[in-house]
């Protein structure tokens, strides 16, 4: 009954993606997410103002490649082609898009129980769409259920293979949930991962 009718869009430049993945693995920048127990806190860096998480309905738009200037901390070979690095770009179907819009309205009027029910309808239609898991995680943030917000972020991450922009959004959600719990070191690391991914 559940049917994912929206397949991820395949972009052409696989070689480019391979190089990016290889290098990012080398940097340990976007390899495997730590599970449950997060990585030990590194030096509590003096956090510069971090980018806010993406606006709620933003992921509805197809991912557009960003060509932001790289921050100095990132060691990236300048020869990397920045165009077409993502292999997939998740979008919402008509049904889930309308349900997300409905959930957003319910969320704005702080009707969290109903918003959750609406997002779960959407998830039943597209259970593997990471955009929906990020939506659900952001709802959990509003409800101050930060642990579940993080879990939803990790669920999004697990299905956002090849979609760097969505991975970045998932990391921002995870970072926000750390920050809200006062786990600043982990939050910092997660934001950095998000920024690295956005950088591509």
């Amino acid at each position: 009954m559940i049917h994912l009718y929206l397949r991820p869009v395949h972009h052409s430049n696989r070689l480019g993606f391979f190089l990016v993945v290889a290098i990012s693995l080398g940097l340990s920048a976007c390899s495997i997410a730590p599970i449950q127990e997060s990585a030990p806190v590194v030096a509590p860096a003096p956090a510069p103002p971090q980018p806010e998480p993406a606006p709620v309905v933003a992921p509805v738009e197809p991912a557009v490649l960003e060509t932001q200037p790289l921050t100095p901390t990132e060691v990236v070979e300048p020869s990397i082609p920045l165009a077409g690095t993502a292999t997939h770009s998740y979008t919402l179907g008509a049904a889930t898009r309308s349900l997300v819009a409905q959930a957003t309205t319910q969320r704005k009027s702080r009707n969290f129980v109903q918003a959750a029910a609406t997002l779960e309808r959407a998830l039943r239609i597209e259970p593997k769409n990471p955009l929906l898991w990020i939506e659900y995680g952001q709802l959990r943030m509003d409800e101050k259920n930060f642990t579940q917000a993080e879990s939803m972020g990790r669920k999004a991450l697990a299905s956002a293979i090849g979609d760097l922009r969505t991975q970045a959004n998932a990391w921002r959600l995870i970072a926000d949930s750390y920050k809200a719990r006062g786990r600043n070191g982990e939050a910092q690391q997660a934001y950095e991962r998000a920024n690295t991914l956005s950088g591509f």
Partner: protein
Amino acid sequence: MNARLKKFLKKNKKPIFWSLGLLLLALSLWIVSLDYQVRKQFEGRRWTLPAKVYAQPFELYAGQALSIDELQRTLQRLGYTQSTQISRTGHFQRKGNRIDLVSRPFRFADEDRAQQTLSINFSNGRIDRMWNSKSEDVPVFRLDPLLIGSIYPTQGEDRIIVSTQETPALLPTALKIVEDRRFDAHIGVDPIGILRAIWVDLRSGSFDQGASTLTQQLVRSYFLTNRQTISRKLTEAVMAILLEVHFDKTDLMNAYINEINLGQEGGRAIQGFGLASQFYFGKPLAELQLHEIALLVTEVRSPTYYNPRKQPERALARRNLILDLLAEFNVVSIKEANAAKAKPLGLVNATASHSTYYPAFLDFVRRTLRRDYQEADLTEAGLVVFSTLDPLVQAKAEAALVSELDRLDKNTKRKDVELEGAAVVTAPTNGEVLAIVGGRNVSYSGFNRALDAKRSIGSLAKPVVYLTAIESGDYHAASVINDMPVAIKLAAGTEWVPQNYDKNVYGPVPMVRALAQSLNLATVNLSQDVGLPKIAAKFKQLGLTEQPRAVPSIALGSVTAAPLEVAQIYNSIANGGFRTPLRAVRAVVDNQGNTLKAFPLEVTQVVEPTAMYQLQRMMIEVMRRGTGASARAQLGDLVVAGKSGTSSDYRDSWFAGFSGSHSVVVWLGYDDNQSTRFSGSTGALPIWTKIMAGINTISWDQPLPEGLHEVQIEFTTGLAVNDQCTEMILSIAVPNDADIPWREDCKPTDSNLAERTKQWLHGIIGQ
């Protein structure tokens, strides 16, 4: 004579006066007490209302893979009537590639939705567009859910209350004509009717001419037992008159329609026309047609004698008699009556092979709710429960279990008892329980094996061992482990010497093969290296209620668990290592529509995603070339993953596994825990396969996670090989840094190195 009487009266004037006075007083007190009883009962809450339980609603959306035939069947299951014009609620019409329907108004937990006209256009096996009566696009729409049952008291009354507005006008008219023609005129009792009845009874010498008015029947059902005594008759008559004094005819008719018994199913009494309509026809009372109303009126006289499911001819004869009567009294035309008489009884689930409600599933719902509610809240307060049951999946699971158990029973030696079984189907991503079968007698609400039969899980434990091994970072699918004899000293001083299923020893084998062929010795050796406490902890993380003891036999499934618990573990595996608590309830709503409790989705990551991906791929090989291979004949190209389980002496036969959208666990065994002579592959697997093949499911399909790549190895040895070299070649997913030795004679030549590199790239990109 007259003088003597006068003298007697004069002499005993005082005592007679007092006696008469006392009698009058007693009579008054009696009437006052009856009056109090009648008013109290009627003015307070008239009925205790069992919680109503709904299945999950069927969602329709643009782009959905659904054929027009499937939608038609779905609507018919929901009791929608097919017609040529669709002006009425609950009707639909099919024209070419299009279905038009008028949905029923329904109060969902999160939305109070009015009746709506919806048009659905199909193309190439999909819904391509939906629109409403104003031609506006409707991207998503849920149909009103199927009512699957109620939480009524044990041996108790179940009912659905209907208002006068929800009652078709024909019903009270028919009731009056058949049961009480002077209802609108009499005062609760009908002296003319009584005299007529006595006359008829005297002449025939029997007591079959009923003279009770509807009001008296109501009183009898309401306050009194069914014993035929003079005093009861008198009380009944007085109470009937009192009711008429206090309440008007419309109220009394409505009370009658909601009160009267119209059937029985096990310990469940079907009270009132609202529930009877669902019970017999699977749709709301308001939507009943003439022949259906006539059948319900038939049941008033005796739901046992005229039981339409057991005595269809008898019920049909009386139904048609009633239709004639309605024509005779000009309620309907002769033509209408004849058309209705030509129709079959039209019962829902008339095949009797399926239950009309789901005791094992409702049992789980009830246990879920007991944590938050008192029994009385559930059976009396009129709560509405939105459950996760998928009626179609439930029906397929029931049918598969029953038919396969019947077949397997013929191959057993035991003739004294029947094989038993249980099945649980869940949706991995949200943990919703779609179906529960608690035994082969699917409509019997007795021992619920799915929840309560704690049995040894056998080799179903093996994926947990291999998962723990992969997570340690020291193992992958091609890692060679030793299938060698082993003797382990137990704490008690004894030795445990496990054996393979076929008593053979296979020597060094890759992990993927050890799991696929369910090799015990290899698994025990592996578990000793990985560490028993880690394995025990993994069971708990995946969702086993209590962490099992870290004993050596844990690797071979000495763990005991009920099918539902196994379903929790396998749901976590199917969901990529995210545990989500299994739920049967989405929300509980009070009878005003306020949500009292919601059970939202919760996920917890308990396994590293790449480790889980590797295990899932290994479990697919179980289905391709291992103990699950016999499923392929029925499943064709459907990609599924699974594992068989057999406990010692063949006491338990298990199969658990998943597709892209469903996780299914099947158990089979005897209630007395004797040997079944079936392994997981010969007993539970055919049932599992039949369920998977019967439901609308999709292939397992996960993109390769970053950090893994595809490698081709030889199944028997685990050595890397190229395409041309061996028949026993398979593709596995291993970490990028995994170092897999080549089979010497199968190394890639320079010419195909480029090809292999391309494939490797192909793999890492997630094809």
